[in-house]
Every structure is written in C-alpha cells, then in structure tokens.
C-alpha cells in the first residue's frame, strides 16, 4: 500500500524529513501534477500518524511552488491505482493548484469574552437585555477583526465556531503578506485586551484545497 500526502506543482526536491514512521517520500508524476507518496507503514492507526502526515505536508510547502494537501488516510494499492484515480480530475486539480500557488493558510481564532455581563443580571428582563448587548458587542468585535483580514486575503472560510470561540476562520494569504497579516491580528489583540485572539500558521492551504467540503 502507498499513502498519499499531497499533490504539488513545481517540486524542486523532496523534503529530507520523511513521512509517517520516517517512511521515505516519493514523487509520482501524473502529467504536470506530482503526487507525493510514501510506503504505507504497517500500523498507521496510532495517534501520531496524522501529526506526522501534517508535518510532511508542511515540509513540502518549502520545496514546491504549489501544494494541495491531501486529507489524512488516503491509501492506494500501488502507483497505477493512484494514477487511475487522479487522472480524471487533473483539470480541476490544476486550477486549484493555480489558486493556492504562492499562498499560505493562516488561522485566526477569537475566544468569547470570559465574564459575560449577563451573569450579573438581577432579573430575566435585564438578562435578556444584557445578552443582546453582549451579542452585538461580540459581532462588532468579530467584524472589526475579520474585515481587514479578509481584505488582505485571496479567500477566507469562516467555520462554525466550537465552544468558547466567537470567531474561527482560515485565510488564504500570499506568502509574502503573511507577516503583514499577522501584524494586523497583533494590532487587534493590543487594541482589545479584553479578548484573546490567536493567529496560527502559516499552514499548507488545507481549507482551500477542497472548498466544498468545508461549511
């Protein structure tokens, strides 16, 4: 079995860091698109395998012009099976590779304010009023954070925030703009010490590799 890590264009060299369990990486050219694969280790169900997959993909972003990360867990019997699966989709994959070329993904999370004023409400009416006010404040903060970042980005995807987050989004940003993008987040954090904002990345553009799979 082989394990698929990413589809890339403009691959200068394979990264010295291997794949899962240190498996060596190999380039399988499919016309102008290159599939980067590794021999599948016998046991890939342990908890570190997804992390190692991710680190291999991140290493590839240093070695190729455009990288489409493949979701963890895609395995094929051999190279022929892989080529048969990828070939019919080359057109679509090329256009996505073009869209992410020279770009990185940055993640931005905003934690909800910790001590909501509604917790101090004396009665139900006041609670509802404070709750509405809090929601307006949070929405205002999210817009103030998101809008300037969105203007810097080629694309953005806002995810439905899980518990504790008011904003959780991914931004596709030109690699050269990543530092400016981070400084916008930092400025927001400095201007709003009442909330916690975290910027992660640069990542390979996972969220923009298959947009229709994200909400």
């Amino acid at each position, binding site marked *: *079995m082989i394990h*698929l890590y990413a*589809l890339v264009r403009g691959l200068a060299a394979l990264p010295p860091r291997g794949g899962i369990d240190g498996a060596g990486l190999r380039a399988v050219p499919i016309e102008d698109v290159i599939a980067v694969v590794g021999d599948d280790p016998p046991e*890939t*169900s342990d*908890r*570190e*395998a*997804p*992390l*190692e*997959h*991710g*680190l291999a*993909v*991140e290493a590839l972003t240093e070695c190729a012009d455009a990288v*489409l*990360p*493949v*979701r*963890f*867990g*895609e*395995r*094929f*019997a051999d190279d022929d*099976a*892989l080529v048969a*699966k*990828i070939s019919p989709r080359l057109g679509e*994959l090329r256009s*996505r590779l073009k869209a992410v070329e020279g770009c990185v*993904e940055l*993640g931005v*999370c905003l*934690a*909800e304010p*910790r*001590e909501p004023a509604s917790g101090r409400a004396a009665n139900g009416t006041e609670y509802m009023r404070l709750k509405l006010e809090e929601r307006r404040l949070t929405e205002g903060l999210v817009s103030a954070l998101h809008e300037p970042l969105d203007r810097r980005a080629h694309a953005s995807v806002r995810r439905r925030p*899980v*518990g*504790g*987050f008011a904003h959780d989004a991914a931004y596709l940003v030109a690699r050269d703009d990543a530092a400016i993008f981070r400084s916008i987040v930092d400025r927001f954090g400095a201007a709003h010490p009442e909330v*916690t904002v*975290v910027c*992660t*990345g640069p*990542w390979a553009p*996972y*969220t923009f*590799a*298959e947009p229709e*799979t*994200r909400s």
Partner: protein
Amino acid sequence: VSVADSRPPPLEEQIALIELVDRVLNAGVVVHGDITLAVADVDLVYVGLRVLLASASTLDRLAATGDSG
C-alpha cells in the same frame, strides 16, 4: 516529534498542534483512495482537545489579568 513531552508546551504551541491535526483530519483534498483510514477515534480525541483549549485560553487570561471578579 513526540506529542507526549514531559512538560506541557506553551498554550500557543498547543493550539498550533491542534490546528494542524484538525486540518489534517478534516480538510484537504479527498481522493477516495482504495482504503480510506478510519480516523473516528483520533478525530474525537482532537475535537475534545480543541474544546478543552478554548476554555484553557480563557482560564489562562484570567490568571494573567489577576481579575478575581
């Protein structure tokens, strides 16, 4: 790289780790290979960690500001 280090890494580093694994498991190109690994268990572990971190970050801020309410 080991995720089971003896001392916990700083919060930002932990968030970065979760963010990476979150992307690896939930995003990226889906090819529908011969075998797609079942990652349900791993997925649940990391989703749980993500929720935990959300509350950890607010706790951390509470400690930093020294605000006892």
